[in-house]
């Protein structure tokens, strides 16, 4: 099992979510985050005072998936979250040690 973490542009969230549901993902966790990569921030000017805003608002999606599903999920996110311009985000994949469904106590892939 893997945990796929994708940092994407906020306005792409709905598109990515719909596409993931279509390829069989059952659930996900979403949080509003801030950060920067190569995009860096933007500049704001108020009465001549300039501020550099380094941390840009982003959305983080976390999806826990079975090993066989990982490639498809990554492709789906890459396809739908891309705009082609700088700041499209990143996908991190890590191994998932255990999963438990709290209601039933099921563990492993059947709990996904």
């Amino acid at each position: 099992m893997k945990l796929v973490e994708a940092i994407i542009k906020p306005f792409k969230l709905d598109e990515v979510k719909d596409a993931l549901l279509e390829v069989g993902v059952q659930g996900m966790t979403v949080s509003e985050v801030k950060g920067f990569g190569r995009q860096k921030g933007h500049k704001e000017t108020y009465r001549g005072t300039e501020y550099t805003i380094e941390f840009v608002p982003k959305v983080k999606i976390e999806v826990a998936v079975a090993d066989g599903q990982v490639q498809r999920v990554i492709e789906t996110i890459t396809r739908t979250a891309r705009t082609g311009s700088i700041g499209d985000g990143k996908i991190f994949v890590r191994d998932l040690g255990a999963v438990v469904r709290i209601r039933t106590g099921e563990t492993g892939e059947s709990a996904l």
Partner: protein
Amino acid sequence: MTILTRCGIGILPAVMFVALTASGVWAQGVAGTQGPARINSGDTAWVLASTALVLAMIAPGLTLFYGGLVRSKNVLGTIMHSFVILCLVSVMWVLWGYSLVYGPDRGGVIGGLDWAGLSGVGLDPNPSHGPTIPHQAFVLFQLMFAAFTPALITGAFAERMRFSALLLFAVLWSVFIYSPLAHWLWAGGWLARLGAVDFAGGAVVHTSAGVSALACALVLGRRRGYGSDYMAPHNLPFVLVGTGLLWFGWLGFNGGSALGANATAVGALMATHLAAATAALAWMVAEWLHRGKPTALGVASGAVAGLATVTAGAGYVGPLSAMLVGVAAGLSCYLVIVWKGKIGYDDTLDVVGIHGVGGVVGMLATGLLASSAVNPGGPDGLFFGHAAQFGILKLVDGLIGLRISPEEEAIGLDLSQHNERAYS
């Protein structure tokens, strides 16, 4: 608790004074109702309407303008400054302020206390203070100016002033700076005798506020994190709505200063409106060329700079001259505000850059553009305001402490001074 106690002690005599004088005021009000026919209803209506317009400049105009410029943790505290000064000055104005400014002249320096508690100030017109309107209409109109001016200064110490210190400061400032200055220029004081003209308050209101603001910013010091932390305005739509209301009210501020529904009022309105419009455009173009983008805050700041600048000469300059004043206002205030960033004093909401510079430019322009009007009063008024200001600030600092603690500053005025939050 100690702050509350100190305030309580200060307020008590004032309350007693109100109680003592209330009966006298009441009697005058009744006696004056059978005023003679010299009262002109058109003039009176215009001055009353203008009074309401100037009130709208303070609240909600200035409160929104300033409230939007600060960070969200300080918005209520900032709005409170203007609101409470309005209430405080209103009470003081009736008790002694009006008399200090407009009461019988004492050596060209100050008005006597003969009219304290509005004693002898009834509904009949006074020949030298609005000869065609009830005397109390003049009192009310001038009250709004007396309240607007210290409210303007609060922009210089926004986000870090102790509330009780603000109250004491407003009282002292009104008595020791505003009253003499307004008397000198508007009530036959020595500057007026020299030939200085100040139509609606370019010197008395805007330059004095700007100069005092500079002193405040210097004595109080910068906000913590100034120059490194993100301190952008928390709500620019507030600022723009506030600008619109200031602009709206300013038509009464300058137009009403004609003290009648007459040709001077029309000229003042024309000049006021045109100066605001051209100054907004001038600032926008300057910023566009200098920084690459025209900003909404720039247009708003330019409009207010134009309004402040035209105030001194609104009744004396024609439409094209007013537009020249506007261009000068937009460009000069923009330059000073860019330059301020390099100097490093923290005039938080740019009272110096907009009102101080605007006031001085306006007085100079009035001298140049107005027909048969000169103004040597600017530099003298400037110097007086600056020197006296330091004394007042040091006194308040010694008595109460001007500035909130570093922790309180981090929490913000709203929670630390008022136990509430704007957006919860």
